[in-house]
């Protein structure tokens, strides 16, 4: 019953978002930009939500996957690998999602088989930093610290960005939703609750953990691809900064960890807050973020969804 309601809300919400460009001038409206950013963050937040919220593996290396996706898109375009002349080529975007998956598997096998919990988190942090160095040192191929430039002539209007962002956000949410309702989701939940008994029941722990990790990587890479088309100038500082790991985590936790709507609500809420503070208090922005994080974590650790639940149960 709750599910049906959520699905109807989502459909209505999507339709509402989809028609916004017909009422607002997407190219100049800050509100539309805010929505676009929120869609972006929703994608990567859902990815992290799946890995950490549902399976309990805290990954601090999402920014590596994000950056990898961005660079993949840039490289494919610049070397004209897919021979397409337009942005948002689905093939390119899929590839940008898959390359991080390769990294995730390569890195995930040793990391997930040997490291538990906090150690795994530290390991992903280390991987993220190593990836950063590799890109800075990558020479002409990755453009070193200056990065790669996509031609800005292709940028005609924000509209395709907006809708692609919406589609991706929907896609990410749908993927996570379907996975969690599937047998895979059940297995992952079993692993999170009690790994030993899950193993005793024949669940191949490593395989599932890597799968979850890969899904998180895929979504991050996808988001990176979208952002690459938007940013046009892809350099290590912009696409490999730790913010891309920390903001999604913040959004998931503020929205409500381990839920489907949580990352969405969190993404919108945090983006809104950052946008507002960016306009009115430019310099203070990170100070505000820091204070906000602390306050929310202290007083609302279960996020906005948790708060809503608490209010509902009090009635």
């Amino acid at each position, binding site marked *: 019953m709750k599910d049906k309601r959520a699905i109807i809300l989502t459909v209505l919400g999507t339709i509402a978002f989809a028609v916004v460009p017909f009422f607002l001038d997407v190219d100049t409206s800050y509100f539309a930009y805010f929505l676009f950013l929120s869609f972006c963050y929703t994608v990567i937040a859902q990815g992290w939500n799946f890995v*950490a919220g549902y399976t309990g593996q*805290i990954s601090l290396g999402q920014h590596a996957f994000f950056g990898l996706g961005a660079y993949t898109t840039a490289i494919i375009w610049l070397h004209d690998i897919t021979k397409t002349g337009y942005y948002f080529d689905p093939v390119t975007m899929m590839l940008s999602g898959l390359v991080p998956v390769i990294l995730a598997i390569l890195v995930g096998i*040793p*990391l997930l088989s*040997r*490291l*538990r*919990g*906090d*150690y795994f*988190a*530290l*390991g992903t*942090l*280390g*991987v993220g*930093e*190593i990836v950063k*160095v*590799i890109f*800075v*040192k990558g020479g002409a191929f990755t453009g070193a610290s200056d990065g790669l430039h996509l031609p800005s002539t292709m940028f005609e209007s924000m509209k395709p960005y907006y809708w692609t962002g919406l589609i991706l956000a929907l896609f990410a949410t749908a993927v996570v939703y379907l996975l969690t309702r599937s047998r895979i989701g059940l297995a992952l939940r079993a692993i999170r609750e009690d790994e030993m008994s899950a193993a005793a029941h024949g669940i191949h722990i490593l395989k599932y953990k890597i799968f979850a990790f890969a899904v998180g990587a895929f979504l991050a890479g996808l988001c990176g691809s979208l952002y690459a088309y938007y940013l046009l100038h892809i350099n290590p500082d912009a696409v490999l900064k*730790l913010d891309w790991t*920390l903001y999604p*985590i*913040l959004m998931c*936790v503020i929205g409500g*960890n381990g839920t489907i709507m949580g990352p969405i609500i969190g993404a919108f809420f945090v983006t809104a807050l950052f946008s507002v503070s960016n306009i009115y208090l430019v*310099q*203070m922005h*990170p*100070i505000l*973020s*820091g*204070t*906000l*994080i*602390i306050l929310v*974590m*202290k007083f609302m*650790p279960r996020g906005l969804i948790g708060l809503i639940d608490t209010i509902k149960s009090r009635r």
Partner: protein
Amino acid sequence: MLEYLSFGLIIQLLVNGILFGTMYGIAAIGLSLIFGTMRIIFLAQGTTIIFLAYICYWLFTLFGVDPYLSLILVVPISLLLGAGFYHALFKEAAALEDKNISLLIAVGLMFLVENLMTVIWTANPRSILTTYTSLVFRPMGINIPFTRLIALLMAVLSASGVLLFLKKTLIGMAVRAASEDMVSATLVGISPHRVNAVAFAIGIGLAGIAGIGVATIYPFDPVYGFIFALKALISLALGGIGNVYGALLGGILLGLIESLASFFLSGGWSDAISYAVFLIVLMFRPEGLFVRAMLKT
């Protein structure tokens, strides 16, 4: 002739590494204490060190207080700050199952303090210059800067002090016990808040000492904090959590790796090497390199 030169150079590199590595080690001991009792990775450790370095700097610049003398002020301030951090920020979060919350609070604190420092004190690098900051001993042709030597001394003394505290005092024993099994600790009457606050206080106290070390050795700026925190984490992994001298040695080892790597390879790669070593140790010797007995997770 050439061989003599390169041998001396190697020694110099090793000495450099050891001398600076102790600062990482001190930071790592602090992290170890905090992680041991609360299972929190206090990512804001590096930024706190820089903050305390600024305190040392301003005491010197505005009031002429000699950096080493300022230990008398900085250490108590740090201890109080640590206890304050715990009570104001981490008290409730430490009891929660979801360790993400504490992690995020630490991150929030890092953002907050780092940018507060940038806004108030600007991003310009600061350094302290006194009569002795350029003093260099040259035994056998090896350069040993005075300030780095003192930093080493401070590191060893404070590590020993912490160890004595943990072994000889009842509350120190309580911290060790709580790090091993918090629930059992409560069953003998130990208050989790008490040991957590003590661990935090000492952790930040050590940050204060590291801050003075950093202030006297390098020019520093607000952004350096995060990098320093990562280095401290790596040192901790190398040395093993729960091992005081181990963490110090881990820092020294990292200093050595950095020193050698940055000489033979260009800048960015030495960082990559450090992280690679970090990963390898995490995966194959998670209990650290300096622990003889195997710890069961």
